[in-house]
């Protein structure tokens, strides 16, 4: 593999794994969302997001990283490059037993990530790697609707009851403490940006902070300090047990009989 391809793959794994695990956490809300229309909408968003992951995995397949189902289902936890924020559970309990999921956390995580995802796609549309440019154009046209959806929830809950506001502010604190892990391009950050595959971390961060500042000002909120990376940097393969647990569920069918999975 050329050096250049190595860095392209590194970035593609970050993009693919972010969408993959984000879609999975979203899908765990199926049947549990606050109301029926939200169930429909959220499922559709998760389906799109898994499609975005598949597009990036397809680009990895084309670069000789293996067969797409293998790439997505047959890697060990420390090979994953997603941000830790996106692998974290939705709340206490699990899907089958007493899921006491946190809707405020979900709304905040999804919106703050959606805003970052837009910025990242705008940058990828100008990537030096042509296939990534095409993928970004396609994904951006779908993501537009996701952003709109989470903004609606955010404005409503931030200006709802006192309890809602408290929960939302606690969620923002939590997400803030991890968000640097989303912005990070990992240990090959310099190489990735030098190749002009994507903008630099600094550029991505400053654009994100600008948009977040605007968003918060609309709901009379402000936050001190910079976003953190409390649980580690997923871009370098550091992960929590939450990822291991999620991958075990996600890959259960695939690993039960690899011969049988011949779709």
């Amino acid at each position, binding site marked *: 593999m050329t050096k250049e391809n190595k860095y392209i793959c590194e970035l593609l794994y970050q993009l693919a794994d972010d969408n993959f695990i984000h879609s999975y956490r979203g899908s765990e809300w199926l049947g549990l969302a606050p109301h029926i229309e939200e169930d429909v*909408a959220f499922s*559709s*968003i998760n389906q799109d997001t898994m*499609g975005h992951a598949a*597009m990036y995995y397809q680009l990895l397949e084309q670069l000789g990283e293996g067969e797409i189902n293998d790439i997505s289902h047959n890697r060990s936890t420390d090979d994953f490059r997603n941000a830790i924020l996106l692998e974290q559970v939705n709340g206490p309990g699990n899907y089958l037993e007493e899921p006491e999921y946190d809707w405020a956390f979900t709304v905040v995580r999804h919106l703050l990530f959606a805003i970052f995802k837009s910025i990242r796609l705008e940058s990828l549309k100008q990537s030096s790697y042509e296939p990534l440019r*095409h993928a970004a*154009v396609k994904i951006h*046209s779908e993501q537009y609707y996701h952003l*709109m959806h989470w903004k609606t929830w955010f404005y409503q809950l931030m200006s709802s009851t006192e309890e809602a506001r408290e929960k939302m502010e606690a969620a923002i604190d939590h997400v803030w403490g991890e968000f640097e892990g989303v912005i990070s391009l990992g240990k090959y950050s310099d190489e990735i940006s030098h190749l002009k595959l994507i903008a630099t971390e600094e550029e991505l961060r400053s654009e994100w902070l600008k948009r977040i500042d605007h968003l918060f000002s609309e709901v009379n909120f402000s936050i001190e300090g910079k976003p953190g990376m409390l649980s580690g940097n997923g871009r370098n393969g550091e992960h929590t047990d939450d990822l291991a647990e999620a991958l075990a569920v996600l890959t259960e069918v695939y690993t039960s009989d690899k011969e049988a999975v011949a*779709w």
Partner: protein
Amino acid sequence: MVELKKGSGGHMPEILNAEQKILHLLQSVTDPEMPFISIVELGMVEEVKVKDSRIFVRLLPTFSGCPALDMIKGDVVQKVKNEIIKLDDSLDIQVEFSFNPPWTTDRISKDGRAKLKRNGITPPPSSHREDGAWEMDCPYCDSAYVTMDNIFGPTACRSILYCNECNNPFEAMKPVANIHEKVDVKW
């Protein structure tokens, strides 16, 4: 080169003939979630090429996570095999999805739009407004007095609306355009 039976003249007309035949055949491949409209009318067929004993079909997915994609691909392969390859069994068929150019709703044909409307789905506007606003009239009574119930509908490409004039719920296809420029998001 393709040698369809009874081909006359040089190779070029034969290839053209085969390609047209395949394109015609693809009119019978429908979206399983909207069986009244063909993938040609939806604007999903980007390329049909016959070269060196190979049929190559390039399709553009509507939404990237659409679960119907594999079924559509299977349907294309089967129909082409049944109809074309029986004329020449040395032909091989390859169907590929591609994101370049991206599928946009302005690719839906006039016939396709009419079919959507007849089936209670308002076709997307053929041009996209700068501010992203939609104008969606009721497919039953054409009233503009409608309410958006859910931007996300039964499939990735559809939304759910309600007509306040004739009191019918209806669906609309989400407009998908290329957002070329850096978008300053204001809602």
